[in-house]
């Protein structure tokens, strides 16, 4: 039997499991970076982590606080200019998985990280696009990780910063984007995947102990459930130890656990 674990830990573990060993992953800072490094420290030792600041094949021992922490460079196979990261490696079609966070998503996996309210009279001004629009466009697959709530899973985005499946169906394909778009949204409550045909995200796995009602309440659209909703496997002892050790090392090094922004 396992000890207890938090919903955040479940989220990170569930996200990390989606990265296959040897896959080439373009990593956003914060939750994606945490999940990707957990994957590298558990089942996917040969996952290749690329950060937009330039490191290719980073193997940090602690979580970076910024997208360009020194340890990313020191542990990388090589460090190239940022322009090259976007040109040769992302746009060049060499990224298997783009791993993104978000401020808000909608039911088609579109992402807003720009603004809440009117663009010119913002209610909340968010940081902006960063690398996300082109990661969302060009990575072969996209994974999204964020905590689920009514405010983050919204029916209609004020602003589409980075496109997922656009208006659903084959809308993304018609835009001419090379990548397949988001294939999973991993939250602290569940895993959602795009339904065949509509490409609307539906719940395919509930984390242990989470009810459908909790998910419905934490979603700003009329969330649907797949025919066979699984229960996410609990974090293993090995996963939890690896994650907690990583966070402890990070806290010892930085005085904080690593950003969840």
């Amino acid at each position, binding site marked *: 039997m396992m000890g207890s674990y938090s919903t955040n830990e479940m989220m990170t573990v569930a996200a990390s499991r989606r990265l296959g060993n040897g896959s080439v992953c373009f990593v956003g*800072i914060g939750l994606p970076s945490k999940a990707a490094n957990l994957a590298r420290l558990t089942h996917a030792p040969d996952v290749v982590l690329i950060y937009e*600041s*330039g490191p290719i094949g980073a193997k940090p021992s602690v979580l970076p606080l910024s997208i360009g922490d020194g340890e990313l460079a020191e542990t990388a196979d090589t460090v190239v200019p940022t322009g090259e990261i976007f*040109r040769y490696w992302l746009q060049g079609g060499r990224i298997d998985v783009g791993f993104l966070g978000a401020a808000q998503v909608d039911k088609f996996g579109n992402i807003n990280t720009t603004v809440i309210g009117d663009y010119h009279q913002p209610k909340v001004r968010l940081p902006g696009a960063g690398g996300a629009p082109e990661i969302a466009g060009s990575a072969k697959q996209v994974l999204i990780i964020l905590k689920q709530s009514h405010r983050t899973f919204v029916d209609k985005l004020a602003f589409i*910063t980075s496109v997922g499946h656009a208006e659903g169906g084959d809308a993304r394909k018609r835009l001419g984007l090379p990548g397949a778009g988001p294939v999973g949204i991993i939250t602290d409550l569940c895993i959602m995947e795009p339904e065949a045909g509509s490409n609307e995200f539906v719940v395919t796995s509930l984390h242990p102990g989470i009810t459908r009602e909790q998910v419905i309440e934490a979603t700003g659209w009329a969330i649907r459930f797949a025919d066979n909703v699984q229960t996410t496997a609990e974090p293993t002892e090995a996963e939890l130890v690896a994650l907690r050790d990583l966070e402890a090392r990070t806290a010892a090094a930085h005085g904080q656990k690593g950003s969840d922004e």
Partner: protein
Amino acid sequence: MAELISLREAVQRFVNDGDTVALEGFTHLIPTAASHEIIRQGKKDLTLVRMTPDLVYDLMIGAGCAKKLIFSWGGNPGVGSLHRLRDAVEKGWPQPLEIEEHSHADLANAYVAGASGLPFAVLRAYLGSDLPKVNPLIKFIDCPFTGERLAAVPSVRPDVTVIHAQKADRKGNVLIQGILGVQKEAALAARRSIVTVEEIVDDLQAPMNACVLPTWAVTAVCEVPRGAHPSYAHGYYERDNRFYQDWDPIARDRESFNAWIDEYIRGTSDFNEFQQKLAAAQEAK
């Protein structure tokens, strides 16, 4: 040939009111000392370009140096918002700030195009995004061979770019190592370039294919030890993560921000004095 001069003289001579200015450095090697000196000298009406505005632009925006910001991600990395940037955008304080917003891939390509002497860059970008709706400078063109629709964006050509690097030699050749970001491209895209360095040495000891800016491609080189703090300089000092966290409450409030700027920037004569004052204050805590 680059002139080896003080940062004060470089900012006096090469940064003019109304200029388009890029201070680049991607988390690593952020030219903080130069942002302080620009504030000290009260430069005005600048159009600031930078992928990640970060603390350096939060400072300059809050101090009233900027009329426009061209950027692609505006946050305090690992901490939260840039409060001075948000206050300027949302409330127009201390003056209205026009923003022109891009993605990282766009601006990185736009610097590459600028360094390449081209008026625009072509990239696969923005399809399905709302950014082109709010930024009319993002256009689309069709490939003359395949018909594919691609984004076309104007190149970045600053009047002056400022970057920080590890070393220069006595001729003014500059060596950059570690996370390179877009600094080389930003420097080459600009009409003038100022490089602050950790130290000036006899011999760069640069590996053959290292990132070196030859002296004749640089306008001024200024020795400013720790000039990237609280960012870091690979091989010299680490990122001061605590300063990024401490910045949040300082910048959150107009009064505390003004007091900090008056005390630590306007109240010091250069970055060396700033560092001494800051260290003394931190010790006193």
